[in-house]
């Protein structure tokens, strides 16, 4: 699964930073049929968690109500230099992960 994560490379301590993630995924609803008339099974990214230096700052539980190629934008307090780890899993059991480093000054 291809994903793109955007966070600022640098921040001041205590600054609230914007985090954005977009994952390439069909978010299959389970209501569609393929060309042979067979139902396409539901397959959505049901869980996405974001950890910042080991502590969870954000978690999303999603259903088919989230559009294909799910995009999320949220915020976090920059506390210390380190790493954001994004991990997710879909109904088919496929996992994905992405990392992003941040330098916190001051």
């Amino acid at each position: 699964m291809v994903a793109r994560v955007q966070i600022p490379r640098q921040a001041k301590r205590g600054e609230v930073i914007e985090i954005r993630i977009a994952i390439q995924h069909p978010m299959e609803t389970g209501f569609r049929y393929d060309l042979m008339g067979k139902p396409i099974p539901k397959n959505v990214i049901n869980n996405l968690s974001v950890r910042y230096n080991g502590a969870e700052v954000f978690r999303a539980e999603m259903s088919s109500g989230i559009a294909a190629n799910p995009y999320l934008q949220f915020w976090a307090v920059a506390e210390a230099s380190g790493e954001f780890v994004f991990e997710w899993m879909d109904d088919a059991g496929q996992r994905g992960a992405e990392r992003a480093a941040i330098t916190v000054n001051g």
Partner: protein
Amino acid sequence: MGTPARRRFISVLAGLAAAPLWPARAARAQDDPFAPLVRKITGGAKVNSGRVTVDTPRLADNGHSVPLKVSVVSPMTAADHVRSITLLSGRNPRPLMATFHLGPKAGRPEVATRVRLNGSQRVLAVALLSDGSYWSGSAEVEVTESACLDAS
């Protein structure tokens, strides 16, 4: 000056016409498509309206991907923050669209995403604060081309 039989027949007709009106009107007064689901989420706790804003375009020409932003009024400190935000759809086959878990480390009680909407509807967001209270806000979205065509 009708016969008794005719009078009885007419009164039965009138009764038939009037009877179903009352329950229908009573049901309409408290007709909230979200109520059962919200009760399930909150466990029957009271949901206050306010503090939660749902931002969407008033008119979306495509229900497959509608930008949506939820924000809550909260200082986001360790003592007073938003614990979770749940997004509910008034018309989707799966009305529970997503739940976002936040905490004091989130800094700002705001999440933006893109949702799928099965036609014009009201979207409701329910926020759970750290003091255990629930707050909700909603937005009306007009969708010209709905998603999930096969389901509806």
